[in-house]
């Protein structure tokens, strides 16, 4: 008994001492601290891991290139397991580190919702690149949220545009049946308002088929699809749910080329196990797809993996989710860079200053090319009213071996989306008794 106590006590003291040491080190040098919320375990790990690798690799690349105008980047991972309460704990743990966390990227719609309530109080910006809540595009209400590169409403709109183009025009959609197979969580439900709005306009029938977490039980769903024979299936899945859906589609005999996934459902882990069975399956590419030939990927391979500091397997560098992580990190770093243009180059930026940077992001083609993102994505520019910055997207198709682009660039229709955003944001503001930001606040 005594020996055990001694060992336990020693372990505790050691832990306390070493954590004190590390915090001391943080206090000495002012580094731009990036918290990294990831899920490398749990039901969604197959998709969470490449994202995390890309995110971390990009931060390492920034350091390899000398930091953000000389300011080194530090980062720390925190495992959320996709659970909201763990995510909140991670947020609380990391938000004060390094003088204040630069930016949080929650990587889960549930955690995004919880942090949306907390971020204004802590004055830390949230980037939800391609996910999160669609109405947070409205920066006049959501001062701290940045759904950069587009939202689920943009995604759904582009998919509908693509489908209508295939059919030969919007009027051809009349009487058609579109089924939405979605993850039964806020994430999966996000596109529904837009799909319903468009259904009213074009007269297609929308069937909603929810799938419970984690998504391995879909027999009943596909039975319904077998019965109804929808003309198109939109897949709003995540993790193991996607490959299960593809396998079920194969078993049901539903043509894969009539299936369209959102970008969370359009990466290598989703289709690899299904192999040939997924041939012809389409998915949305919000800006980028798999980009193994882009310059930034070559940079990562040379300066990070080449030095033996890479995160994760080398072969996965440049895959869809890896690129998503990379771009998410890049957006955060560019926010800092933009803030430095106003508040002083080569200085450490506070989260509040970074927020300004993100709100005035002006990533034009020249800057993107310089960063090595030529051909990967389109320019992004944000403003006080528009925290989304871009409405462009493409569709890519799995050919059995890799993802290949199968469409031109589309732009989501802001004539439809803007009023919806305004309405939802107003509703949120009314519920929270918030005032819309005035012009003066936009300058700050």
């Amino acid at each position, binding site marked *: 008994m005594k020996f055990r106590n001694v060992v336990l006590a020693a372990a505790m003291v050691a832990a306390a001492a070493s954590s004190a040491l590390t915090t001391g080190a943080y206090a000495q040098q002012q580094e731009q601290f990036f918290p990294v919320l990831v899920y490398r375990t749990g039901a969604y790990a197959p998709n969470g891991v490449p994202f995390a690798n890309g995110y971390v690799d990009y931060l390492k690349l920034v350091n390899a290139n000398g930091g953000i105008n000389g300011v080194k980047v530090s980062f720390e991972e925190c*495992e959320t397991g996709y659970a909201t309460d763990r995510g909140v704990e991670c947020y609380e743990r990391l938000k004060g580190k390094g003088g204040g966390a630069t930016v949080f990227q929650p990587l889960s719609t549930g955690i995004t919702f919880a942090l949306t309530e907390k971020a204004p109080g802590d004055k830390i910006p949230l980037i939800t690149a391609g996910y999160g809540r669609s109405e947070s595009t409205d920066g006049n209400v959501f001062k701290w949220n940045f759904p950069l590169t587009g939202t689920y409403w943009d995604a759904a709109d582009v998919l509908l545009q693509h489908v209508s183009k295939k059919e030969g025009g919007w009027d051809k959609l009349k009487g058609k049946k579109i089924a939405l197979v979605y993850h039964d969580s806020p994430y999966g439900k996000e596109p529904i308002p837009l799909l319903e709005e468009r259904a009213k306009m074009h007269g297609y029938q929308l069937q909603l088929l929810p799938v*419970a977490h984690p998504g391995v039980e879909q027999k009943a769903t596909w039975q319904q699809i077998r019965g109804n024979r929808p003309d198109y299936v939109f897949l709003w899945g995540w993790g193991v749910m996607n490959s299960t859906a593809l396998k079920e589609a194969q078993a049901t005999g539903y043509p894969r080329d009539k299936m369209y996934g959102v970008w969370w459902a359009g990466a290598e882990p989703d289709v690899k196990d299904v192999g040939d069975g997924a041939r012809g399956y389409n998915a949305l590419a919000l800006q980028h797809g798999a980009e193994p030939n882009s310059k930034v990927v070559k940079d990562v391979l040379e300066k990070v993996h080449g030095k033996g500091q890479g995160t994760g397997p080398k072969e996965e560098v440049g895959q869809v989710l890896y690129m998503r992580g990379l771009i998410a990190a890049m957006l955060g770093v560019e926010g800092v860079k933009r803030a430095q243009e106003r508040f002083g180059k080569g200085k450490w930026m506070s989260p509040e200053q970074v927020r300004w940077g993100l709100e005035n992001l002006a990533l034009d083609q020249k800057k993107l090319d310089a960063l090595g993102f030529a051909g990967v994505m389109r320019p992004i520019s944000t403003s006080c009213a528009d925290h989304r910055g871009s409405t462009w997207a493409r569709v890519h198709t799995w050919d059995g071996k890799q993802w290949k682009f199968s469409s031109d660039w589309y732009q989501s229709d802001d004539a439809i989306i803007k009023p919806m955003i305004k309405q939802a944001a107003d509703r949120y503001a009314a519920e929270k008794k918030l005032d819309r930001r005035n012009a003066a606040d936009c300058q700050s």
Partner: protein
Amino acid sequence: MLYRENGQFKTSYRADLQIFPIVQDRWAILALVVAAFVLVPMVASDYMFRAILIPFLILSLAALGVNILVGYCGQISLGSGAFMAVGAYAAYNCLIRIDGIPMVAAILLGGVFATLVGIVFGIPSLRVRGLYLAVATLAAQFFCDWAFLRVKWFTNYTPSGSVSVSNLNLFGWRVETPAERYLFCLGFLVIFALLAKNLVRSAIGREWMAIRDMDVAAAVIGIRPMYAKLSAFAVSSFIVGVAGALWGFVYLGAWEPAAFSVDRSFQLLFMVIIGGLGSIMGSFFGAAFIVVLPIFLNQALPAVGDLVGVPISTAGISHAEFIIFGALIVWFLIVEPHGLARLWAVGKQKLRLWPFPH
């Protein structure tokens, strides 16, 4: 030496019936409560409050509720997460639908609705017991998951099905800073713990325990099983519902049904079993074990790894956390199947004899 009751005589029934018959206990608990109210807000950091203390308090409260049902009345329930969800969503709906309702009233009303649902799902307990009842209460879990995902009215027609609450205030006092939130939850916990402790010492508590120990014998000596079981379900779900409302309002701020999934039910059941069935104290130990230990491991493991020069990856930490946590549960249950509360009691007993054990 210090923990000895020599010379403490009880000369009245009142004195004999005190919650803490030993003077030292009484003072220790009083000191603990005072420290929790005064000292902790002065020294704890924001992180301690928001990530550890607040969830610990709220889940202690929930575990308290579950302990009444499972520990005292012997009705195994896997639906506690559902009752938490009912509390949270009902409180949310009261808040947005009744104009000018004080937040505390909304939270308590959440508990009331959880009570109603708890009684409905407690009805099967009149016919089935043990594992069968556990499975029957699991139905509550599935039903509530379904209802809060599908019935849009509950979520006030938000497109994503996620609801949020902010601007918490208590009769004009804005519960905003972490310390205030902590005090708010602590207030609830202290009041409910006191009520629960007294309930289980009273006639109704004895009826619950009689039903737990042998329901046929209890019925023979004149205890109405229906009344006892349903009242246990009612009290338990009320407390769990209040805890659910606090979890949504104070801790998460915005939530979706997944926050109260079946995992939460299991978590609560584990808290009660590890903490100690049929012990108010045990609920706190269990909650601390389940809430704090993984977070502690999560932060200590990398530090220990650094110390010996082995960097541990995030996934590695997460896996190690599960392994150590699981192993500790097994170890505790083997060493002391009656839970941490029993270890605590044994420790106290030893202290009373120290330094001259038999």
